[in-house]
């Protein structure tokens, strides 16, 4: 595996290996010395052509904990905002000797374009491309679910995950459906019909328009962000009606099992797709998703750049032990 562009790039065993590696790396992060020397001397570029805070910081923290040199290249004030093409940006990064580029871009397929082109030779990690995919988010979500509901080294067979909201425009939903299904989970998408893509019935998941019916027996409920610009595009009559049918409120939280996880990839619209008491309640793992994100992204960088067959994990443990 040279790049991580889509969940389709991962076999089931590779996905599980990333989760297992992340778990090992999380132990390091919890220790007194958070840093590993694994990627010392490697240059990683955060190419963020679209505004993002948490994903960029998460990747930056992950790269730094592996001792990589990190260059942040953000849209605002950079040559991208001056109309530089992706090709020219890529060639610039190549000339600077980037070993890997973590790209967030508003255009679906931008990460794949970068990887398939001959513009640069480094590894490409998709940190969210348009409405296509966000594989590291799905991996951290699966990591979070597994940590609470399954065992390390295992998949997610039989775990019932409900994903609710704007599936049509959600790269998080696309990556999660692919990954969770690959790991054996039972996934149900819940949305108004307007926010489900054409042909969604061919995806490896169930479809429901009825949130209340779908949450019965759910092990995890993942809420998706409703972007404010959808309001003017007539996907639903208004915010109030959306919340009534598809928002996670205290009544719906009460209908959940005590062990059910409440998840959200952030940033949240409190009061729209999730109420404050649901977001901050006992079942919520939303803040934990963020910290798990760093470990999972460390694992991704480790697998791609340190080349990570399972045997080398011992190496990490030794290094960690020595520190």
């Amino acid at each position, binding site marked *: 595996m040279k790049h991580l562009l889509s969940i389709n790039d991962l076999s089931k065993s590779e996905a599980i290996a990333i989760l297992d590696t992340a778990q090992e790396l999380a132990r390091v992060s919890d220790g007194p010395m958070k840093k590993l020397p694994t990627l010392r001397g490697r240059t990683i570029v955060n190419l963020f052509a679209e505004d993002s805070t948490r994903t960029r910081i998460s990747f930056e923290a992950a790269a730094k904990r592996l001792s990589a040199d990190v260059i942040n290249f953000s849209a605002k004030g950079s040559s991208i905002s001056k109309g530089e093409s*992706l090709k020219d940006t890529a060639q610039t990064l190549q000339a600077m000797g980037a070993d890997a580029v973590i790209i967030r871009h508003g255009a*679906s*397929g931008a990460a794949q374009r970068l990887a398939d*082109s001959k513009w640069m030779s480094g590894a490409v990690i998709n940190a969210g491309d348009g*409405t296509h995919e966000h594989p590291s988010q799905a991996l951290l979500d699966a990591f979070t679910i597994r940590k609470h509901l399954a065992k390390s080294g295992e998949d997610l067979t039989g775990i019932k995950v409900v994903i609710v909201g704007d599936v049509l425009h959600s790269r998080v939903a696309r990556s999660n459906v692919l990954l969770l299904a690959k790991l054996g989970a039972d996934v149900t998408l819940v949305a108004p019909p307007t926010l489900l893509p054409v042909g969604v019935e061919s995806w490896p998941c169930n479809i429901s328009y009825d949130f209340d019916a779908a949450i019965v027996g759910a092990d995890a409920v993942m809420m998706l962000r409703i972007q404010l610009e959808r309001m003017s595009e007539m996907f639903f009559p208004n915010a109030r009606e959306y919340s009534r049918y598809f928002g996670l409120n205290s009544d719906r939280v009460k209908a959940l099992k005590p062990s059910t996880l409440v998840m959200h990839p952030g940033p949240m619209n409190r009061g729209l797709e999730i109420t404050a008491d649901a977001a901050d309640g006992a079942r919520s793992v939303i803040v934990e998703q963020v910290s798990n994100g760093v470990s999972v992204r460390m694992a991704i960088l480790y697998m791609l750049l340190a080349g990570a067959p399972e045997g080398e994990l011992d190496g990490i443990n030794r290094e960690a032990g020595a520190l």
Partner: protein
Amino acid sequence: MSAKKSNFLLTGLTLPDGTASDLQIANGVITAIGKTIASNADDQVVDLQGSVVLPGLVDLHTHLREPGKEDAETVLSGSMAAAKGGYVAISAMANTSPVADTAGVVEQVYALGQSAGFVDVFPIGAVTQGLAGEALSEIGAMADSNARVRVFSDDGNCVHDPLVMRRALEYVKKFGGVIAQHAQEPALTKGAQMNEGLISSRLGLKGWPAVAEEAIIARDVLLADHVQSRLHICHLTTAGGVEIIRWAKARGINVTAEVTPHHLLLTDDYANSYDPIFKVNPPLRTQRDVEALREGLADGTIDIVATDHAPHPAEAKECEWQEAAFGMLGLESALSIVNQTMVQTGLLTWEGVADRMSRTPAQIAGYESHGGKIEVGAPAHLTVINPTQNYRVDRDLVASRSRNTPFHGMELSGVVQATFFRGIPTYLAGQLTSIHNYSSNAQGGSSI
């Protein structure tokens, strides 16, 4: 100018009806057809054993980019690409800069075509001023100009306002014109990137539903029926669109339709690469649509093949899919693709190809000097193809000024051997030559 021979004896040909024959050309007209014609002293004899001769191809849908985007294509470079692809007449779409919405612009494009001397370039006039869809352009003035425009289209944009469309259909009845509609409901395709279906949903590219095309086709055949005018549907891409045209024709509505070579061959599967070389308007559809288009072309529901040749400079395609321009080259590969998808599959005979790519397009557009039979006394507009020779498409070898061919690297079947325009080989033995390079310019010149 060099004193090249302008009389020819072409030997070893097969006529569209399958008859083996030689063919003699003198002073721009066909002078003899038959087996073993005796060559005259000043004949240049060309051995074309194994090749099929067709009446010179006519394209009803070409983007030449001049004036305005000469970095992508000029009338000259597009004419050369056309000659190389077997064409003798092409129709320059109106979406230039300035837009071809006045007599001045269409006369300029027409004159540039005549001075290039590879094909007849017949300008298409814009239906509405600036292609904005709001006010009719100077349709009458363009029709009466030296370019004698008969086809009007806002191609690239849909004439979406039903009242504007109605008026345009009515107005062109005055001189027997035709409105060529780019059928795309704008509200249903805002920001659309590719065919809406399983693949667009997975790729996260905004979908372009088939109904956005079909709804306009359905509306416009009804309008054409109501005002008893003539409608032409550009680049049909959907199985449903074929059904609507079939229904309209059965009702006696005066509608014609075209299909592009790329829609006969490629599907939206190619978008999986996110390589915008496959980004085109209207988009590549599904295999089911491809099959319906081939059947429609075979049974005559779809009247013609038109290229929608759309050159773009490299930077318009070397980028993210959603940033890239729509369109692909078509002139140089069209006949190979028709050979491969229609003739070799048994769906169309060579007579059928002559009809769909020469006779009927000339008839729809009123290009009277084109699309005739191959017969003694007719102007020698001829296309010669070796249908069994294969080749690998190389974008670096195209005659077009742009290189955005989606067929790069693909093996296609059928190689154009020669194109004769007014009796002059504009393309022969791999060489492109303007008719102005011949001393005794032939007759049979353009009289539209």
